[in-house]
């Protein structure tokens, strides 16, 4: 078996190296920091999952990497090194060349992510022509190839169809084709299966895994579904209230989580063996921008909180390449996922 990538020292330059990324929005009066000290790296070809509740900053992290934050009222800090270049420092023109060509994205809602007035083929070939100087005919050929690559049975017919005549699963496949048609090195998949029903979900996940392995595209998979991460990713990041609180190999985190929040998420997965019992949940909710706790952000909901926890926590690397943002990580023995 191959070694777990998250568990070894990175031998090569990471594809994407996010360092101390912070994002603040101006709400008319004050700045509210929605992402704080977000640091992580993705190796070429790696499949990394980001998990967390809604509003933890997962999608915002993705939009920051792509440079799709609103142009006004935003303050960006830190660095995002992609192939050694800091994305935050690129001109808009240079960022456009990166988007779609080097880093691409699949969205949650396949129903509305395709333009209803153009056929799937037209949209794909326009994406090709944005990045490559090719004629319409050749671009259409590439579009049809991309549709075939995502498992659409009659790609030529599908290319001539409007999004409204495709099923949800077909649209998400078309979306993935569009994201991968220019062969990017990193694909950000923001809850790509959430809007789909379960059997289609499994097909799309298998497709992403297969495409990632075949093309060597690294995938950053954003989800709130821990089961999907467990099945597909090798490394996972847990985000809470705009911070990364845990980072490490999926198997090890699932077996022995070190951050109480990760443990809480694992505990709230429904288990068929506990059918009659009450489903455990994490009490409280993600703090809003203006009531952010001064110390550990998870402290108000944490069962293991102590007075010394009420100071800001750092993301600390362990000896085994796991990182955790909890001062009690070493002493707590938190329950993992039941299998």
């Amino acid at each position: 078996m191959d070694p777990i990538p998250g568990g070894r020292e990175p031998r090569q330059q990471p594809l994407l190296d996010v360092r101390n990324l912070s994002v603040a929005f101006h709400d008319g009066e004050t700045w509210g920091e929605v992402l704080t000290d977000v640091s992580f790296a993705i190796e070429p070809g790696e499949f990394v999952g980001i998990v967390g509740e809604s509003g933890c900053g997962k999608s915002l992290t993705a939009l920051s990497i792509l440079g799709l934050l609103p142009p006004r009222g935003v303050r960006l800090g830190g660095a995002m090194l992609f192939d050694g270049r800091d994305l935050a420092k690129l001109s808009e023109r240079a960022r456009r060349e990166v988007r779609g060509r080097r880093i691409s994205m699949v969205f949650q809602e396949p129903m509305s992510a395709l333009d209803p007035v153009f056929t799937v083929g037209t949209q794909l070939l326009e994406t090709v022509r944005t990045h490559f100087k090719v004629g319409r005919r050749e671009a259409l050929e590439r579009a049809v190839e991309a549709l075939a690559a995502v498992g659409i049975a009659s790609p030529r017919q599908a290319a001539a169809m409007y999004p409204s005549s495709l099923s949800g699963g077909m649209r998400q496949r078309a979306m993935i084709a569009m994201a991968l048609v220019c062969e990017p090195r990193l694909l950000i998949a923001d809850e790509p299966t959430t809007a789909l029903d379960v059997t289609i979900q499994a097909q799309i996940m298998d497709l992403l895994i297969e495409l990632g392995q075949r093309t060597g595209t690294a995938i950053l998979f954003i989800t709130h579904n821990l089961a999907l991460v467990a099945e597909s990713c090798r490394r996972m990041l847990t985000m809470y209230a705009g911070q990364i609180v845990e980072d490490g190999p999926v198997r090890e985190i699932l077996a022995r989580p070190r951050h109480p929040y990760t443990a809480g998420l694992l505990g709230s997965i429904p288990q068929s063996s506990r059918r009659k019992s009450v489903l455990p949940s994490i009490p409280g909710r993600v703090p809003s921008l203006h009531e952010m706790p001064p110390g550990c952000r998870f402290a108000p909901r944490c069962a293991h909180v102590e007075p010394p926890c009420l100071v800001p926590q750092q993301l600390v690397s362990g000896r085994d390449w796991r990182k955790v943002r909890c001062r009690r990580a070493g002493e707590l023995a938190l329950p993992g996922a039941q299998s």
Partner: protein
Amino acid sequence: MSTETSVAKEAVAKGPTAAARHSLWRVIRRDPRAVVSLGYLALLLAVSLFAAQIAPYSPIEQNVAELLMPPSPAHWLGTDDLGRDVLSRLIWGAPNSLYASALAVSVAIAIGVPVGVVIGFLGGWLDEVVSRFIDALLSFPPIVLAIAVTGALGIGLTNAMLSVGIVFAPVLARIVRAQTLVVRQALYVDAARAFGASTPQIVVRHILPNAIQPVIVQVTLMLAIALLAEASLSFLALGVQPPAASWGGMLARAYNYIEIAPAQMYTPGLAILFTALAFNALGESLRVALDPTMKRR
């Protein structure tokens, strides 16, 4: 099933835009009102293009021996107060009327659509300022504003219709702005950006095509209003200048002889009525055909 496959194959052969036209045409073809309107307008266009060949007499040739004559084998629709053949003047009025409508609406589109898209897409203070200006323009009665603009630009059909177009532009700008505000929130706009499209590309490829449908409907209605505006301005002697023929001008002249020859008013009046109705009916059919909630594809 087999027809659908053949349609799909045909669409592959012709390219994507052909498929869009195909489905719109299918809806229109099933709507008798739209077919009749389109047929009438096509006939009117043919008459306009071949006015010189069709008209039995010159539209400005006077014949003082036959003034205000009722219909006869020589003059099917009679003659006017200067002895000119009414049918010939009606035929020669058609190109003027169509030109006038088309010009006014083209001006309205050329000004209104870009302004609406830009202020809707960019927003901010520009939107605030231009939107208030549009509100101010819309508060004027259109004909009064058109008369004022004609006064400034000078009398004549082209100037009159330029002014009507300027009066219409804010209406289109407002519609396009509202649509743009909706469309720019769409996920496919974000998706296009995520795939590397630039702002001009997004506006041209995604915002405009999605914002334009209500404009198509509005434009057909505007053609009718422009036709009536042309008639009104010509009636007020601000549009087509004598001796050239126009329906509004004919109506104005006939109005002077309403007690001697009331029938003189019927033909230009009916020509204006039918043409305006045809534009309106077409607009209504298009509205239904383009309404996504009524679509069955």
